[in-house]
C-alpha cells in the first residue's frame, strides 16, 4: 500500500461568505515532489497554511502520514519542515541563533544538525551578520535551513525561490532532488515559476479559484503536452467539422484564440493542409508545436474560467 504523506478530503476554507479553498482533495504519496500550481489568490498558500496548522479549515479533513486525529496531526507535524511565503526569522539574531531557537523548540538533541544545514545551504559566510541585514535571498536560504532542521520526512515550501539569484535557484533545485533521492523526502512545493517546477516535480496539482482542477503525474503531463499541429483558419467551426468528419479525429482542442491544436496527423501536415483547403478553408497558420507546462496551465485555467 502506498502511504500518503498528505491527503486532504474536501478541505474548505471560508472567509466571511467567500470560499478561498473549496472541497479540495489532494493526494501526495511519500517520496513525491508535488508541484502546487495556481494563480495569485487561487488558494495555494491558504491550503498550505491549513496543512501546516497556521489556519484552521472551515470543513474537511487533513491526513498527514495517514493520521487525521487532532492530537495525531500535531505529532505528525513534528515530521514536517516548512518554509512559508515569508521566512519566519528573528531579525535581531544571527543565522546560528535563529537555528538554535528552532532546534530547541523542536527538541532536537545536539547542535550537529545546525552545522549540517549550515553546510548544506552555505550559511557560514553570514556568521556574524544579524538577519535584519540579510538580503531576501539570504533570508530565503535561512528559511530553507530552518525547514530542513532535524531531517524532516515532509518538506512544505511556499514560493521557495522567491528572491533567489539564478545560481541559488539551481543549487536549491539540485538540493531538493538530492533530498528526495537520498532521503526519500516528500516535498510539496508551490511556485509561480512553472519552468522551474517542471524540472523538479514528479506530480502536479493545479488549483484555480480554490478548486483543484487537475492532479497529474509528470508522465501524464508530458503525454498531455505532446507535440501538436497548431492550426489557425478563417472559419474554425467549419474546420472542426472537417477534422471530425473527413479526417476522423476528435483528438484536438480549440484554444481561446480559435487556434485548433490537433494531436493526430502531426507527421502528416500535408494531408491536413490539403483536406482543409480542398473544403474552402483558408489556412492562416499551420505549425507543429509542443505545450510547455505554462501553456498547459494557461489553457487549463482559461478553460475553467470560461
Amino acid at each position, binding site marked *: 500500500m502506498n502511504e500518503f504523506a498528505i491527503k486532504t478530503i474536501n478541505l474548505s476554507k471560508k472567509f466571511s461568505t467567500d470560499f478561498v479553498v473549496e472541497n479540495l482533495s489532494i493526494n501526495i504519496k511519500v517520496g513525491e515532489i508535488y508541484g502546487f500550481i495556481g494563480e495569485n489568490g487561487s488558494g495555494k498558500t491558504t491550503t498550505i*497554511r491549513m496543512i*501546516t*496548522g*497556521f*489556519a*484552521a479549515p472551515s470543513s474537511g479533513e487533513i491526513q498527514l502520514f495517514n493520521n487525521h486525529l487532532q492530537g495525531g496531526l*500535531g*505529532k*505528525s*507535524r*513534528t*515530521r*514536517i519542515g*516548512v518554509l*512559508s511565503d*515569508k*521566512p*519566519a*526569522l*528573528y*531579525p*535581531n*539574531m544571527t543565522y546560528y*541563533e535563529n537555528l*538554535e*531557537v*528552532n532546534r*530547541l*523548540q*523542536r*527538541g532536537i538533541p545536539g547542535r550537529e544538525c545546525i552545522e549540517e544545514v549550515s553546510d548544506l545551504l552555505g550559511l557560514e559566510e553570514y556568521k556574524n551578520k544579524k538577519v535584519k541585514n540579510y538580503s531576501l535571498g539570504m533570508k530565503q536560504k535561512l528559511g530553507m535551513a*530552518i525547514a530542513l532542521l532535524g531531517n524532516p520526512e515532509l518538506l512544505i515550501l511556499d514560493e521557495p525561490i522567491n528572491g533567489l539569484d539564478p545560481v541559488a535557484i539551481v543549487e536549491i533545485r539540485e538540493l531538493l532532488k538530492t533530498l528526495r533521492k537520498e532521503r526519500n523526502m516528500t516535498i510539496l512545493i508551490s511556485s509561480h515559476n512553472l519552468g522551474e517546477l517542471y524540472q523538479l516535480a514528479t506530480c502536479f496539482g493545479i488549483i484555480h479559484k480554490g478548486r483543484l482542477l487537475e492532479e497529474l503525474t509528470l508522465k501524464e503531463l508530458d503525454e498531455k503536452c505532446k507535440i501538436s499541429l497548431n492550426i489557425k483558419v478563417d472559419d474554425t467551426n467549419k474546420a472542426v467539422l472537417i477534422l471530425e468528419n473527413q479526417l476522423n479525429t476528435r483528438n484536438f482542442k480549440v484554444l481561446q484564440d480559435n487556434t485548433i491544436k490537433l494531436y493526430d496527423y502531426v507527421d502528416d501536415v500535408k494531408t491536413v493542409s490539403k483536406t482543409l483547403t480542398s473544403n474552402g478553408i483558408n489556412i492562416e497558420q499551420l505549425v507543429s508545436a509542443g505545450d510547455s507546462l505554462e501553456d498547459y496551465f494557461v489553457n487549463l485555467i482559461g478553460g475553467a474560467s470560461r
Partner: protein
Amino acid sequence: MYNLIRAEFYKLKQDKPYKNILITIGIIIVFCIILVTTKSPSKIHVISGTIGSTTFGYTINKYKDINNPTLQEIFNSAQGFSPFLQILVMFLVTSLVLNEYKNGTFKNSICAGNSRVKIYISKLLIISFGILIMNFFMLCGSTLFGMIFCKISVAFNNTILQMFKLIMLSWLVLTAMASLYMCFSIIIKNKSVILALGIVTMIFEPIILATLGLSKYGDYLLSFTLMKICSMPLYGQAAYNIVLTSIIWIIITSIIGISIFKNQDVK
C-alpha cells in the same frame, strides 16, 4: 512543553528590548542611589491620592531622616519606581508576543507540532520569569547598592523577610498584569494601542476609583493593588487577598487568551 520553555528562555536571553529594559532598570537604580547619597530632601510623588484617611501612591525618596536612611526606607523608595516597572512590563510583553506575530515566528513553533496551548503557557511562564528578574533587580539592586553607599549594616531579621514578601507580591501582581497585556496583545495585535491602554489604565484607575468612591473595588484591580503594595505595610489577610486576586486574574486572562489564540489564523 520543556522544549518550548527552553526555546522561550533562549529567546528572552537574546531579546534586544529585554536587554534595554534591564539597562533602564539599571538607570533607575542609579537614580535611586543618587537621590539617597546626595541627601536630596524632597519626596517625589509619582502617582498619589487620598482615599478616606489613607494616602495611596508611589513615592520616591520617602525617608524620615535622609541623613540616616534605613534599609526598609531605601527599599520603599525603590518601590516608588514601580509604575515605571509596570510600563517596562508592557514593553516586555509586546516585544515577546507581538514581535512573534510581526516576524511570523509563531509559525515555526506551530509547524513544529507544538500545541498552541503549550506555546501560550510557555510564553507566559517565561514572561513571568523575566518579570521576576526585573523586579528583583530593581528592588534588591537599589537596596543592595543603597546599603553599600550609605554604609548601612544589615541584620537578617524581619525586614529582609518583609522585603522578600513584597518582592514576591509585586512579582505576582506584575505577572497578572503581563497575563492581561498578553491576552490583549493576542486580540488587538497592536503595540501602540496596548501601551496606550496600559498607561491610561495605570494612571486613571486609582483616580477614577477615588473620585467615584469605589475604592472598595480597588482590591480586585491590578494597578490599584500594586499601588497598595508600594504604599503601606501588608499583613496576613491583605497579602492573601492580593495573591488570590492575582491568581484569579492570571487564570481568567489566560483562559481567554488561550481560547482566542487556539483558533486564530497565524500569518
